[in-house]
């Protein structure tokens, strides 16, 4: 296929390298350096999609980030990505893309019927239409909107691409590499500052790529190229293209998304697809330029209507004519630049200028070239459905209210220029109080809140000479503050054409008897009439008008529509634009891939994985692991074809009959040291700690100040001023922070130090009636008899040359010990235990058996200490000291906490002694009671009791104390189960606690 709209020479593309690509199944080719948009236009393709609401045909409107129309679904290397702007997507070999928002095809779209139903789809139509009847929402409206909405389809496959995050610090971050960005970067860099210069496009230079100017006796583009290559050589400068600074956050932190690989057919090995930069800058220079704004007229969304600056960019950068019979519709001198470019390439443009008698250098040049210029003329409406075929034009009166006789002019594109809107997003995001500049009819940055300065067109300065001068000076001034150097660079002379004053005119009135749609927001199909309706219905705040009409809410965030929307509201309301104000600019400036935001934190990298030093042994012995917070713990050790249920029963049973060993390294461990350690523990825990002797452990419960149980565990007095505290695995970090809080802020007078020792110790719980026999073998030189090491006793021993701590504590309710050795010796300890335990039929047990053992003993754990229970609820009130104060004690006097029928832990057994009870089920009195059935309590933990060989659960039950013996029902709507149960004591096994003391 020939590229009938590509000019023979010129542009910045590489004509030596052809690139083939597919759009909607048709093959085309373009050149290296093209965007998908420029390559399609070169092939004469203007129809690329359908609009969001009315499914009207959509073409290209811009040439960059402001593009509201040409949003496509991209296919690359077996992956697909929605919501890609064709104007930003660089062409690569084998690129495939398709239209979105159309069915069955972009040429014949059934949804376009909405276009004829438009009287039914006015502003706020979602709110009005889909309100009633209520029952229609889920079945009819919601699926309909879901199908109709969206700009493409997200892939459901795992994203193979890699995304990186990078943190960077610099003296000056400069966003945008146009004239102001280059000048400020250059003078700051020459003055020794650490500079990052970011450009969102692949090419540096901004407006210098397309404008006809001279800097220092070179063309603007050559000057830009020279500056860039010099900056790239400087060690204190980072220059990044394809990098969008999209967010300005607090304390001068900005985030930039660098597209590392999107322009390549395939991401290179070891390269990320995108890199997200978190940049903390001492000073930020915003040189983001400006975006041309459209003039509003009838059917101004027809493919072929586009920004005049975009037409110029396609021509100058890509060598592409957007049309061969162009009409330029302008209210300022910029349109003439585009017209002159057309003329230079042998195309005859017609210029319609809304001004009556504009005079300037550039207009003279256009006249001298013989360009047909019509003053006081406007486009009333574009004609043509899938492409502009002609334009209805008319003269307009000086007050812009009255149209003359309508004439029709043949044309194949309409290039519109309604003057320029500074890109103030970053400044506004930083907290800058923007102000309205009457001279340019747009908002510009006002008073800075953070260390940010806006330069050039983004600041409303549209002459190159002034832009360069202020930018060179600012770069110097700001860098001097930081580097305290004083290196001057000379400001080059500038040759540019002087502009005359633009016309404030922005919207063509409707001719009598016509009802053309005049669009403000092109992506969301918001027309002048929609805003008028919203105002008629009483919406006044611009924020409300925005949300009701969806003006400026599309993925382009109103880059081309916001200001015209404001003009309209202020006109109808008879206000001036500044008093209407603008809607809030929020990051991101342009859509950012979720992948880039997530970075490397996907899959198993979404959190760190902690492994015990014995982990490899578990792995080698068929352990099936479970996540316990960030720890990986063996859930059970699989033998043959065993299920979880069978294995955990076997392991638990073996603990009750022989001896088992469990890796308890994950338990939080905190060293509490200092002369006031006992006093500190006495305040932290609910029970008494002052008299605990050296060599003894004690179980303790700590509360939050609101009386809720925070954590439990044993703490052992290792020596006079040294305690070893254990916490639950889940709360380890919080408990340490809690202790530090009280030591540093509340009781700084206490001479105590706390430090986490979780990682320093490997722990093994040896539990079961034969555990003492095994311990004797492990520590032959230590007296581990019931007298030598009684329950809650502590001794230090030597495990075949390795120093060990032996605690006689029990979570399983059996005679049990916990042995700790330094982490490096963890595996050695474990293997010795297994080796010497063989004669006692030792088996390792995992968390599932651990749970079974503690549940049937009635020992509480995280599922009972769930941040909603007080000591009484867990039958721990015996641990509340009456003699001393402790954290949270005062809260326990609250009336709800002392209520007679307060909830309390109980045991639950199914009447049939067979049906397992799902955790989280509710307890009710009557299974057939009408809904809402009153909940009396909930099942906190369930197991299969190995002692009694039937299911057993723990529950937190209202008035649990008086419910023992009651028959209730367990209901689990989730599992669709109703189970009749009996309430029993939570101590189902060894209620007197004799085994642990045996």
């Amino acid at each position: 296929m020939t590229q009938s709209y590509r000019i023979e020479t010129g542009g910045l593309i590489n004509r030596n390298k052809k690139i083939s690509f597919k759009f909607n199944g048709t093959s085309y080719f373009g050149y290296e350096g093209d965007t998908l948009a420029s390559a399609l236009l070169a092939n004469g393709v203007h129809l690329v999609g359908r609009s969001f609401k009315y499914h009207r045909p959509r073409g290209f409107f811009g040439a960059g980030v402001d593009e509201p129309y040409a949003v496509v679904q991209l296919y690359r290397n077996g992956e697909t990505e929605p919501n890609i702007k064709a104007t930003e997507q660089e062409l690569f070999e084998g690129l495939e893309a398709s239209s979105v928002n159309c069915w069955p095809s972009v040429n014949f779209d059934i949804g376009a019927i909405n276009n004829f139903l438009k009287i039914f789809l006015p502003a706020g139509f979602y709110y009005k239409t889909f309100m009633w009847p209520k029952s229609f929402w889920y079945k009819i409206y919601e699926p309909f909107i879901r199908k109709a909405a969206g700009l493409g389809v997200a892939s459901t496959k795992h994203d193979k691409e890699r995304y990186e995050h990078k943190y960077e610090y610099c003296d000056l971050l400069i966003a945008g590499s146009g004239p102001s960005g280059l000048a400020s970067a250059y003078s700051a860099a020459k003055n020794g500052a650490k500079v990052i210069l970011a450009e969102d496009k692949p090419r540096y230079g901004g407006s210098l790529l397309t404008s006809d100017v001279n800097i220092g006796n070179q063309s603007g583009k050559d000057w830009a190229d020279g500056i860039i290559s010099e900056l790239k050589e400087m060690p204190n400068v980072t220059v990044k293209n394809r990098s969008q600074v999209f967010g300005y956050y607090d304390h001068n932190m900005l985030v930039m998304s660098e597209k590392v690989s999107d322009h390549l057919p395939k991401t290179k090995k070891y390269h990320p697809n995108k890199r997200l930069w978190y940049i903390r800058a001492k000073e930020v220079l915003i040189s983001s330029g400006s975006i041309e704004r459209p003039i509003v007229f009838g059917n101004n969304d027809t493919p072929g209507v586009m920004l005049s600056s975009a037409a110029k960019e396609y021509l100058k950068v890509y060598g592409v004519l957007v049309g061969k019979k162009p009409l330029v519709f302008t209210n300022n001198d910029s349109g003439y630049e585009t017209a002159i470019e057309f003329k230079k390439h042998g195309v005859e443009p017609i210029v319609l200028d809304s001004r009556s008698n504009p005079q300037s250098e550039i207009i003279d040049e256009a006249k001298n070239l013989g360009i047909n210029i019509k003053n006081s003329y406007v486009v009333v409406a574009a004609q043509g459905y899938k492409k502009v075929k002609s334009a209805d034009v008319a003269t307009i009166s000086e007050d812009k209210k009255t149209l003359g006789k309508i004439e029709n002019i043949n044309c194949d594109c309409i290039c519109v220029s309604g003057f320029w809107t500074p890109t103030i997003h970053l400044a506004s995001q930083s907290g800058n109080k923007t102000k309205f500049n009457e001279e340019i009819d747009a908002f510009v940055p006002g008073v800075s809140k953070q260390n940010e300065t806006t330069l050039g067109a983004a600041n409303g300065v549209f002459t190159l000479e002034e832009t360069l001068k202020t930018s060179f000076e600012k770069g110097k001034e700001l860098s001097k503050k930081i580097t305290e150097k004083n290196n001057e660079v000379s400001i080059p002379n500038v040759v540019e054409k002087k502009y005359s004053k633009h016309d404030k005119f922005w919207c063509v009135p409707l001719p009598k008897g016509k009802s053309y749609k005049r669009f403000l927001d092109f992506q969301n199909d918001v027309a002048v009439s929609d805003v008028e309706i919203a105002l008629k219905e009483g919406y006044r705040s611009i924020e409300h008008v925005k949300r009701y009409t969806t003006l400026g809410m599309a993925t382009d965030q109103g880059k081309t529509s916001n200001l015209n929307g404001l003009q309209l509201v202020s006109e109808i309301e008879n206000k001036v634009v500044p008093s209407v104000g603008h809607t809030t600019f929020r990051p991101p400036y342009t859509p950012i891939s979720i992948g880039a935001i997530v970075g490397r934190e996907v899959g198993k990298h979404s959190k760190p994985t902690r492994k015990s030093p014995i982990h490899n042994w578990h792995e080698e012995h068929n352990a099936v692991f479970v996540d316990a917070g960030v720890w990986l713990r063996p859930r059970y050790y699989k033998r043959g074809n065993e299920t979880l249920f069978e294995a955990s029963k076997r392991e638990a049973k073996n603990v009750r009959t022989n001896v088992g060993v469990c890796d308890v390294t994950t338990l939080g461990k905190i060293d509490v040291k200092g002369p006031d350690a006992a006093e500190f523990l006495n305040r932290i825990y609910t029970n008494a700690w002052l008299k605990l002797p050296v060599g003894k452990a004690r179980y303790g419960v700590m509360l939050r100040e609101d009386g809720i149980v925070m954590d439990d565990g044993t703490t052992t007095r290792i020596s006079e001023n040294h305690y070893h505290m254990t916490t639950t695995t889940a709360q380890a970090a919080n408990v340490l922070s809690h202790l530090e809080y009280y030591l540093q802020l509340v009781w700084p007078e206490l001479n105590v130090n706390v430090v986490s020792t979780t990682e320093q110790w490997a722990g093994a719980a040896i539990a079961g009636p034969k555990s003492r026999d095994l311990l004797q073998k492990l520590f032959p030189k230590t007296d581990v008899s019931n007298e030598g090491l009684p329950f809650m006793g502590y001794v230090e021993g030597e495990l075949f040359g390795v120093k060990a701590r032996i605690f006689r504590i029990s979570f399983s309710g059996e005679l049990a010990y916990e042995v700790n050795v330094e982490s490096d010796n963890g595996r050695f300890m474990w293997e010795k235990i297994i080796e010497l335990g063989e004669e006692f039929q030792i088996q390792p047990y995992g968390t599932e058996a651990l749970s079974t053992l503690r549940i049937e003993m009635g020992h509480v754990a995280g599922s009972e200490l769930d941040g909603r229970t007080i000591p009484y609820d867990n039958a721990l009130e015996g641990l509340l000291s009456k003699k001393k104060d402790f954290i949270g004690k005062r809260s326990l006097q609250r009336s709800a906490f002392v209520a007679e029928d307060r909830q309390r832990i109980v045991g639950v057994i199914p009447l049939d002694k067979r049906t397992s009870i799902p955790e989280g089920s509710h307890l009710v009195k009557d299974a057939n009671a009408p809904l809402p059935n009153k909940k009396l309590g909930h099942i906190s933990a369930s197991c299969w009791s190995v002692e009694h060989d039937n299911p057993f659960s723990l529950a937190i039950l209202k008035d649990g104390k008086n419910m023992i013996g009651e028959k209730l029902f367990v209901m689990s709507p989730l599992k669709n189960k109703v189970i009749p149960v009996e309430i029993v004591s939570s101590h189902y096994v060894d209620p007197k606690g004799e085994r642990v003391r045996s």
Partner: protein
Amino acid sequence: MLHIKCPHCGIRSQNEFSYGGDATVKRPELNKEVTDQEWDNFVYNRVSPRGKHLELWQHLSGCRQWIKVERDTATHEIFNTYKANEEIA
């Protein structure tokens, strides 16, 4: 992301810290009789000022010290930071 000057370590990013609430709340002394109202004020009741707020942060991924930060809740401006035991004028 805020930039917080830890009085022990220097300027660090917010993600090294965790927030700890109002720093002006004083825990009633141990063993002291307090009314329900006083206790509720200590445990639950907080003002939520717009503007200057003295608050606690812990330099969790740093020196682990609790510090006091004087911050504007509306603008996020940080006026000053103090060590836990530092007297604030």
